[in-house]
């Protein structure tokens, strides 16, 4: 079982494509009944619990939630074309209609963007693996086997269950990096660990106290470490519970850094689970015990 956690070849989780279960039909608009994706996996359901009316064109691989955007662009350009190519004089009535039409076209273009933030929206893009970077798996060697296994398991589970392509866990002196990173070529594992530590020191990540979530590209120094094409970034600090008798503030023991190649990769639920996994390392290196 432990060999599973050490296996560096992990494929990133790909969320199911939105229109993946449409069949090939002639392109007429038809209404189909689909089970909501949330409950599709459970075959013990006795009742159809969230039937969804979806308009699909039946073309495989075409994502219908962006349809209003294309219609907005298409009709908007036709309106402009009509204005210039049509009759020589334009009446005020026509100008009013065209203004209304252009406003509607602009709204239609914005509609898929708004729809992304509604509850129950599923991410459309799939994680793409970055090209030109190599998958790595390095871990500090000066920690006990039990801790090594915990770190390996945590990085494995984070890569497998969320839309993550690179993960870095740093707790006190222990460091574990897995996934795709923009490390310098041809360095030995030990040097790679040093390189990571230097980067962390430069940015001062070990002193972070709050969870930071960048749903779209983060600028800056962090970009050097991360592979090209990283869009979302989540940094979750691991805090030691404050000692009430000593009246001290929460101290940071380390952090968990996750990067993904799609934007808005981590939903609220994902972040809650990531927080729970980070809690596992609270007090991990405080006392050592063998199982």
């Amino acid at each position, binding site marked *: *079982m432990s060999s599973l956690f050490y296996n560096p070849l992990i494929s990133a989780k790909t969320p199911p494509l939105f229109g993946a279960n449409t069949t090939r039909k002639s392109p007429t608009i038809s209404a189909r009944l689909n089970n909501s994706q*949330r*409950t599709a996996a459970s075959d013990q359901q006795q*009742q159809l619990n*969230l039937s*969804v*009316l979806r*308009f699909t064109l039946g073309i495989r691989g075409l994502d219908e939630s962006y349809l*209003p955007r294309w219609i*907005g662009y298409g*009709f908007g350009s*036709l*309106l402009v074309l*009509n*204005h210039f190519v*049509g*009759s020589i004089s334009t*009446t*005020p*009535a026509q100008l*009013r*209609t*065209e203004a*209304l*039409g252009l*406003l*509607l*076209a602009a709204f*239609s273009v914005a*509609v898929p963007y*708004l*729809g992304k*933030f*509604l*509850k*129950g929206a599923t991410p459309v893009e799939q994680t793409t693996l970055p090209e030109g970077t190599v998958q790595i798996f390095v871990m500090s060697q000066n920690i006990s086997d039990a801790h090594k296994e915990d770190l390996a*398991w945590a990085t494995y*589970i984070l890569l497998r*269950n969320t839309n993550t392509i690179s993960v870095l866990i740093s707790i006190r002196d222990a460091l574990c990096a897995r996934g795709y990173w923009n490390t310098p070529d041809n360095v030995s594992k030990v040097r790679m660990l040093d390189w990571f530590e230097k980067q962390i020191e*430069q*940015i*001062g990540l070990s*002193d*972070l106290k*709050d969870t*930071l*979530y*960048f749903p779209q590209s*983060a*600028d*800056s*120094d962090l970009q050097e470490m991360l592979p090209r094409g990283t869009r979302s970034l989540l940094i979750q600090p691991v805090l030691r519970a404050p000692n009430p008798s000593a009246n001290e503030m*929460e101290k940071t023991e380390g952090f968990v850094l996750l990067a993904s190649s799609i934007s808005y990769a981590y939903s609220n*639920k994902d972040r809650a*689970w990531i927080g*729970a996994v980070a*809690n*596992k390392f609270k007090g991990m290196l405080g006392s050592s*015990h063998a*199982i």
Partner: protein
Amino acid sequence: MEAGSLLRTPIPWNPKRLASLPAFPRFIRASSNLQEGRYRGPKPKRDWVADWVSNNDDTVRSLPIYVGGVSLLAVLVNRSVSGIAPVADASSSQSRADLLTLGLAVTNILTGLVWLSIRPKSISVVNPQGVECQRIYSQLPDSVVSELLWVWESLSAVTCCSSLVIAYDGSCFLQIGIAAESSTEDGEAEAVDATKLMQGSLCQGVMKSGAQSYLANLSLYPGKSELPFLPSNTQAVILQPLGDKGIAIIGGDTIRGFTTSDQAWITLIGEKLDATLTKFVNNLPLAVQDKI
């Protein structure tokens, strides 16, 4: 990328106070204690659109319908007011412009309808009836106990879990959360008979298939009688096998409360628990010796 002097004044870290933060020119998503300023990385900017849409979910869902409907009426009114007959032919440029605008209005109305239809149903929480309990097998070493407690804290914080029972190798290692009240002793939780549990048909089925079983609406399953230690109004149950020798029973307080993502996480946590508990069980003779 220094944030500037405004942010050097310490702001206490308290999520409830986020709403009352004064308007700084450069917003940060969470208030932070940057006294020492040692963190030099980027700070996230507030995402206005995402926050507004998430907070006004219902309004935004019906917005395209209103926009489309109003535009539809406006086109017709425009036609009648300017004295043109409301005839849909594509001969004049006015008619063509009208048709295009009508097409856009209809697209918006349909999008609004789709959004309304995919609104997730909100299901209410049913408070489990029972007593709080926390029973941990006495011979477990500290590391195993902390791992079991970590599993309970994660599940209760992130999912709708309200009861957790872990049975392994013929004994009940953990019973925590809300449990049914015992029939024999008042105020105490019903004990878990691990051997009887493992021999029951529910658990046998799960162990044989080796896969997680999700009973999303427990009242529909007759096997409910094999889980007498769970509160009687437990709504959903996940049975997660731990290798060949154990099972984790996770009770929730909402019908279909565990999402597919929860199920995936629970499966992986189950594998880790199995690894930990197997190691403990295999080392048992040594562990007992060490304790002496």
